[in-house]
């Protein structure tokens, strides 16, 4: 017979004691495994939540990008339709005007008879809504020693229209002046202020805000006064034809053809209103789109951060619980096994006494107790792992990934016997050290 048989027989004989010890170990192991399983589950769920958040965020950004793209396309389309419906502006220049110089300087330098304006106004051209004769020239503002653009202008409505409209631009009455930003701002001039330009006294009627163009250094006066000041009586540099409308697609060619019939030899340019409007619309649309996308990205980042924070909080909470529960369960289990082992050793006092008397050494008695403790630990470790795993997975909720970790199973199967043996060690030592003579005399 071997000692192992003795161990097994004793377990079978005192099965309740064995079961109680196994329950104690199982609880400690189950607490540990359940805690670890829940923490692992939390980490997996956290990663999943963050990944889902990232995917959701990317999907929202992609959706928003598509919406912005669609909106931009729609905006462009609508703008194209709107600008197509709008009138366009042209400028009529003298035959000898150097177009390159005109673009470079921003002002025409050649002149045409003012009578051209009357001719156009009286012509049966129905595609022009407003005519604006202009005389303009860079001059030295003698009183202020500054180069300015002096522009004379007058509103005109083609007579061909049976329903005359209000002139597009306000006329500048005689004796009045409209000033660009760089002319009124440094001098703190306001409507009603008086000033003198090259010997002519004028009253300010309007001050334009800054436009970032040649307009900022322009002074607008009545056409007739400007012609006098510039010595260009009955001459104009350009005629602005505003809000022109044509039925055909190639409208510049059409208007050129119409004007050429009335004013042969003049040059006609379209002003960049449509292109500017489109560019402006594009810029605005892009800014809106960028802001919208940025908002979507920020929202996505916030969503991911929020999910991660929630998950981190959950894991921290589970770790905090584990930090309390596991040591408590281990200490409680240890104390429980010590109690059971002490009880068992007392119960087996007579048995140990006779075994010692018939020749069993104290080392064999230790093996007898520790062998049982190891079996208690193995059974408790196995049962505790299963219970802990089931509780952990059940408490963690549905999770796609398996939480089974062979390392924790091995840890449970090693830790539990170690715990059980450690708790049994002292009672076993006492039992092994007892004097058989004393026991036998007692009995």
């Amino acid at each position, binding site marked *: *017979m*071997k000692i192992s048989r003795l161990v097994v027989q004793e377990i079978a004989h005192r099965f309740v004691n064995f079961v109680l010890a196994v329950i104690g170990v199982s609880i400690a192991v189950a607490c540990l495994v359940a805690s670890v399983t829940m923490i692992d589950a939390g980490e997996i769920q956290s990663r999943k939540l963050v990944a889902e958040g990232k995917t959701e965020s990317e999907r929202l950004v992609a959706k928003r990008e598509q919406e912005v793209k669609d909106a931009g396309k729609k905006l462009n389309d609508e703008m194209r339709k709107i600008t197509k419906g709008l009138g366009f502006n042209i400028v009529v220049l003298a035959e000898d005007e150097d177009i390159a110089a005109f673009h470079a300087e921003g002002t025409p330098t050649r002149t045409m008879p003012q009578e051209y304006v009357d001719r156009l106004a009286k012509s049966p051209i129905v595609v022009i809504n407003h005519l604006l004769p202009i005389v303009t020239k860079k001059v030295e503002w003698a009183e202020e020693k500054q180069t300015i653009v002096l522009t004379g202008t007058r509103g005109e409505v083609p007579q061909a229209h049976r329903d005359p409209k209000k002139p597009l631009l306000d006329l500048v009455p005689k004796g009045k002046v409209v000033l660009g930003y760089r002319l009124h701002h440094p001098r703190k001039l306001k409507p009603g202020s008086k000033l003198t330009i090259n010997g002519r006294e004028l009253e300010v009627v309007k001050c334009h805000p800054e436009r970032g163009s040649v307009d900022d250094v322009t002074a607008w006066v009545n056409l007739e006064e400007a012609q006098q000041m510039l010595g260009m009586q009955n001459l104009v540099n350009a005629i602005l034809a505003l809000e022109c409308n044509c039925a055909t697609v190639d409208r510049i060619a059409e208007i050129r053809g119409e004007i050429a019939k009335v004013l042969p030899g003049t040059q006609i340019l379209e002003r960049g209103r449509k292109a500017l409007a489109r560019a402006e619309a594009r810029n605005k649309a892009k800014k809106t789109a960028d802001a919208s996308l940025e908002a979507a990205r920020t929202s996505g980042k916030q969503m991911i951060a929020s999910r991660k924070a929630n998950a981190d909080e959950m894991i921290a909470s589970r770790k905090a619980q584990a930090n309390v529960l596991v040591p408590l369960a281990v200490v409680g289990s240890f104390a429980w096994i010590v109690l059971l082992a002490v009880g068992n050793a007392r119960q087996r006092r007579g048995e140990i006494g*006779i075994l010692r*008397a018939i*020749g*069993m*050494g104290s*080392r*064999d008695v230790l093996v007898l107790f520790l062998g049982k403790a190891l079996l208690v630990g193995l059974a408790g470790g196995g049962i505790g792992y299963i219970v802990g795993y089931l509780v952990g997975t059940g408490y963690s909720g549905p999770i796609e990934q398996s939480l089974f970790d062979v390392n924790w199973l091995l840890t449970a199967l090693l830790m539990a016997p170690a715990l059980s043996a450690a708790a049994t060690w002292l009672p076993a030592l006492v039992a092994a050290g007892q004097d058989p003579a004393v026991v036998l*005399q007692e009995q």
Partner: protein
Amino acid sequence: MLISLDHITKTYTGDTGPIVAVDDVSVSVEAGEFVAVVGPSGCGKTTLLLVAGGLLRPEDGEVNIDGTDPYSLSGEQRARFRAEQIGFVFQQFHLVPYLNVLDNVMAPALVTGETSARERAETLVERFGLTDRLGHRPGQLSTGERQRVALARALLNEPRVILADEPTGNLDGDNSEQVLQALKAFTDEGGAVLLVTHDPDAVAFAGRQVMLQGGQLAQSVS
């Protein structure tokens, strides 16, 4: 000389001071001899038996069992010596409650690890009429059967000496007879028996009786 107890003194520490349980007692038992130790309760009989069994170290005197002083051995060596050289039989049987008859008989083989122990155990079980009780636990046996199991256990390792403490104290006449016959047979085969008893029938089986009184040797009668 199989058992030699020479000027043995054993003292216990009691609440009121030291108690001399055995005072300068000398007893020897030859091979084939059956010696009974008698005397009133508390006269030191059991103490003398435990000293002889290597279980209780005396303050004074020498113990020699078949040429070996068990107290000169280490704890583990002494335990093995007991397992191989001495058989114990007690009034309370002291069987292991969760082992069946066969396993209880084989218990001393736990120490020696002999492979032939099972065969010997079965022979002893048969000899003591316990074959039909082989798988029973002590709780399922009668007192006589339990004592026979204890006797079979004592004989398993074929010791030279049997130390018996009131082995018939709980037995009826027939069972006592059976046990005493077995002990007598052991001495007939060359073993030595030192029996502590109050039982006059048991004394009658002994070839010699030693009487203790107050821990001292009062009389030795052949």
